[in-house]
């Protein structure tokens, strides 16, 4: 079964000194494959234990700029924990992770390179859409916070609701604002934990467009999802996690990639884990 995967994914080999916010990212020069782009994320032997249980168990990975890693797996497989480790929100029990060569959890300047999106909106219900996104921009040190806010709200098609308090928005619109909050500072590594939850078709399309734009601009994406089609449509690499470890690793852009075979493999691995 064919899937709308990214063919011939490209990224910039060397990026300019300033990273523009998502709304200003254009299609960057082609010709450099993702594999040839600089390494953005490198993890070696990552372990994170909670008590005696290893939520992430000896995970090693290397992601280039422009890569999109789709993480699949059953509940409790360690996907979110891995995301939090890469976002610098958790310290590894053992092993190392680096973002652009800086060990994680990194200094403040490194955290600015990360955008975090989860099924929790991370918004303040009493504040308006603009106030929420602008606050996030200011927290990340964006100099033109107002301008960046306007751009990203336009990009996610919620500019018409900018003065509405978030508590009055539907779940889908809240999710779009949450995405705007995470992208307003032009992150180089975007960590997405079930980001499509609650999005309607318009929101999902706008969001996918924004992610493609980020990817084309050389940003690295790590996407946790249970939806294989959504995940694989953007992925340059698809991984199935179980019991904290990578049990299957595939490049959807490779010739001969078969979604049906991947789905079957996914089901069998997940059911093996449950059984």
């Amino acid at each position, binding site marked *: 079964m064919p899937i709308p995967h990214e063919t011939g994914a490209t990224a910039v080999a060397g990026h300019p000194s300033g990273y523009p916010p998502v709304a200003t990212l254009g299609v960057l020069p082609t010709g450099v494959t993702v594999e040839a782009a600089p390494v953005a994320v490198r993890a070696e032997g990552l372990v994170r234990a909670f008590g005696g249980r290893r939520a992430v168990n000896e995970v090693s990975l290397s992601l280039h700029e422009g890569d999109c890693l789709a993480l699949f797996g059953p509940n409790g497989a360690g996907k979110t924990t891995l995301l939090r480790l890469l976002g610098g929100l958790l310290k590894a029990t053992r092993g190392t992770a680096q973002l652009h060569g800086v060990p994680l959890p990194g200094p403040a300047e490194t955290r600015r390179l990360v955008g975090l999106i989860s099924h*929790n909106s991370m918004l303040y219900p*009493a504040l308006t859409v603009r106030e929420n996104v602008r606050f996030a921009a200011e927290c990340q040190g964006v100099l033109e916070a107002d301008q960046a806010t306007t751009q990203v709200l336009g990009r996610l098609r919620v500019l018409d609701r900018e003065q509405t308090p978030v508590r009055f928005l539907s779940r889908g619109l809240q999710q779009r604002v949450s995405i705007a909050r995470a992208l307003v500072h032009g992150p180089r590594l975007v960590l997405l934990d079930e980001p499509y939850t609650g999005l309607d078709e318009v929101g999902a399309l706008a969001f996918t467009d924004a992610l493609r734009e980020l990817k084309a601009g050389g940003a690295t994406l790590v996407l946790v999802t249970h939806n294989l089609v959504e995940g694989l449509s953007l992925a340059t690499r698809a991984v199935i996690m179980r019991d904290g470890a990578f049990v299957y690793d595939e490049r959807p852009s490779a010739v001969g990639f078969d979604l049906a075979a991947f789905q079957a493999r996914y089901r069998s691995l997940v059911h093996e884990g449950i059984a």
Partner: protein
Amino acid sequence: MNTTAPATASHRPPAFFADAIRLARKDLLIEFRTRSAFLAATVFAVLAVVIFRFTWDPTAIPAFDLAPGVLWVIFTFSGLLGLNRSFGLEQAERAYDGLLASQMSRESIFAGKVLANLVFVAGVQALTLPAVALFFDLQVGSAWGVLIGIVLCASLGLAAVGTLFAAIAANTRLAELLLPMMTLPFFVPLVIPAAQTSAVILRGQPLDDALPWFKLLLAFDLVFVTACLAVFPFTIEE
């Protein structure tokens, strides 16, 4: 291998005070919009003043002996209502993750929360202090400025200790129960000198008489603010 993250021309570096003020402004804006904690604290404070007033026998205890205790009991417990909310509003939609993932330093987050809590407590105190003076017929006279200074000094320590424990308690299921249990013992070294200093002023004694207690209050302020600032980053590690 790179040793630093790529520079970003359109970003400013983290700034301790600016970040703290930004966070405090956001918290206060939310409180201004919802007014839930402020209303609860104010209602509690006014009710407490009224109850203390009508159970007080002026012929048995002079007002200036009772009032300092009343003041500090009210300040302590009304402050707890605001502290509970301080991290509660970050937890509802996990907005705290967004803060921690930002370039804002952990120390700025702490300072911002303390500042917001201090303003909150000061707002409640601004209503409570005149109410106590009125109900207990206190003749503070020209010592208002000194009394307000002492109240703010003690409140800074209370806000620092309370913010630290509110951050710890926020991740637990029993945050509202745990916070007072953890915080109140640490409030004692601040509340005793604050109440004693207030008593000296309300009795109309020379300010020099309050100096030893005031020095003790300043010392605890310094210790608590510094220690809480240093410890806070460790409380948010999972």
